[in-house]
């Protein structure tokens, strides 16, 4: 177990270096001069050149990479060419936003996905099974941005129930904060619920076939107890693993949902930065989210080991 984890962590190092190279290569790949993109309406050629010097954009790319990587190791991701603010500070500002959105979305996903999965496994082959399946897949099939706009129109504009967009820090006003994030979390959660439902269903089906479940049933234990106590507990492993993986993906930011609901999280930050060629921000955020993703993967792995007694022994 420990050696397996150590190996995984060691393997992550070249992966991270590769990611940093990919992201850095973007700077050379993407058309559009960052300085020109930012110059906007003040495009004096002399100014542009001076700006390139200030941001080291005239240096060879490998030199820029080395410079950036050395600073990144110390936690310094440079300065946003657009806002003039340090990137690490911007990331720290957005971290709670993204995590709150991810957690609330996961809650929705779990609340919808797991019961639907259990239900559809227990009632396999019945109309309930098909219905649960279609409903769960529907969540996955609606474009997020479309559902988002429709919800804003209905819930915020027509019924005036929830704020239309934006973000309120949890520390400022917890109730308002949760209210503001309810719609985006629901939009994201419905999309994730489908995978959770599928995995819960097939894990449950696997377990329900096992001897000990049959025995429990034969002993005359009530269905409810058998399902929740014996079956679901053992079906939990793949579900927890998947949840960790989905959470890792959420850390990368929910690009369009954040865009529609104007949530200042990682997804919106990266996209806006790509469009104005604010490379320091793109590089910093992608690296941090990739680390988050890899960590969640490690966690998923660990959970898999811990929850699976057979593997622990072996």
């Amino acid at each position: 177990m420990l050696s397996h984890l150590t190996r995984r962590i060691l393997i992550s190092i070249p992966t991270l270096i590769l990611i940093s190279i990919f992201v850095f290569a973007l700077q050379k790949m993407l058309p559009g001069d960052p300085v020109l993109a930012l110059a906007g309406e003040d495009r004096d050629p002399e100014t542009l050149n001076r700006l390139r010097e200030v941001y080291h954009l005239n240096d060879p790319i490998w030199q820029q990479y080395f410079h950036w990587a050395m600073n990144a190791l110390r936690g310094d991701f440079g300065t946003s060419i657009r806002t003039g603010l340090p990137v690490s500070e911007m990331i720290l500002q957005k971290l709670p936003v993204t995590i709150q959105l991810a957690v609330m979305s996961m809650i929705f996903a779990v609340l919808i996905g797991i019961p639907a999965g259990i239900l559809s496994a227990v009632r396999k082959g019945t109309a309930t099974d098909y219905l649960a399946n279609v409903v769960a897949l529907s969540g996955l099939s609606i474009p997020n941005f479309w559902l988002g706009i429709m919800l804003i129109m209905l819930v915020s504009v027509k019924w005036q129930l929830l704020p239309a967009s934006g973000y309120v820090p949890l520390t400022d006003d917890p109730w308002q904060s949760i209210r503001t994030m309810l719609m985006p979390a629901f939009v994201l959660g419905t999309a994730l619920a489908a995978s959770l439902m599928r995995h819960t269903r097939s894990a449950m089906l696997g377990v329900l076939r096992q001897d000990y479940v049959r025995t429990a049933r034969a002993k005359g234990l009530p269905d409810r107890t058998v399902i929740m106590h014996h079956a679901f507990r053992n079906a939990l492993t793949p579900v927890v693993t998947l949840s960790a993986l989905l959470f890792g993906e959420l850390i990368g930011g929910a690009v369009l949902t954040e865009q529609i609901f104007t949530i200042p999280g990682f997804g919106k930050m990266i996209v806006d930065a790509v469009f104005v060629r604010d490379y320091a921000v793109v590089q910093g955020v992608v690296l941090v989210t990739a680390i988050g993703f890899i960590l969640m993967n490690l966690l998923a792995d660990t959970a898999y080991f811990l929850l699976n007694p057979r593997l622990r022994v072996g």
Partner: protein
Amino acid sequence: MSNLASDPVLPRPQSRVWRKFRHHRSAMFGGALVLIFVLLALAAPILPIPDPAATDWGAIRLAPSAAHPFGTDEIGRDILSRMIWGARASLMAGVVSVAIAIAVGVPLGILAGYFGGWTDAVISRCTEALLAIPFLILAIALAAFLGPSLTNAMIAIGIAAAPVFIRLTRGQAINVAAEDYVESAHAIGLSTPTILSRYIFPNVLPPVLVQSTLTIASAIIAEASLSFLGLGQQPPAPSWGAMLNTAKNFMTQAPWMAWWPGIAIFLVVLGFNLLGDGLRDALDPRED
């Protein structure tokens, strides 16, 4: 089908799979949905519908009526016609980008899985690195790099989706390579290309098939998302995503502009998801 049941010998796995698939109700429903849209898209040139690019400035943003069953858009084009022609772009986007993902992902996955060692290490680390970058971010960056157009959006989505196929085929190839018949093929001196094409490739196909149906679904959404950011299909040609992108600016005055493409994307993506799901169940030997 009925003669199979009375067959004394075990049914061939393919037919068993086919039978399971045929009896998968939601898969059949999904397949029907997809089929309807494919037929509509194919029939676009022969259907009696107006030119999807014909503008009429006297008839902008008209609500659905007998003349325009789905209404008209912001410069007076018939939405029904644009929906049907747009089906081509959206379905193409799904299918072509997945074809690209398979073309890139499957060979790399087989190489990594079959050869192992350094080949595997290099391919796997690159795959992991790409997987750690959020899918849509990767697609956006690639689409921005290639320039906004439907073709480029398809390439971008294809490349961004390739890592999933690499990982899938790699795992499958490792399993197959360890089978006895592959070992014996080695022993009798069959060449590596022959082993790869005769034994490994056919065996990695079923999960790839399942994955591609599901990925087509997400690729259609991804194309819509890229169009939503202005990086997909370019005017005046229609695609559902591009139509939604324009429609969102008229949500209060002309909500039907957003309803149709939204519903169409939902139905066709649902169709592919149900289809993929059914395939997975049919190919899963544990589920009977």
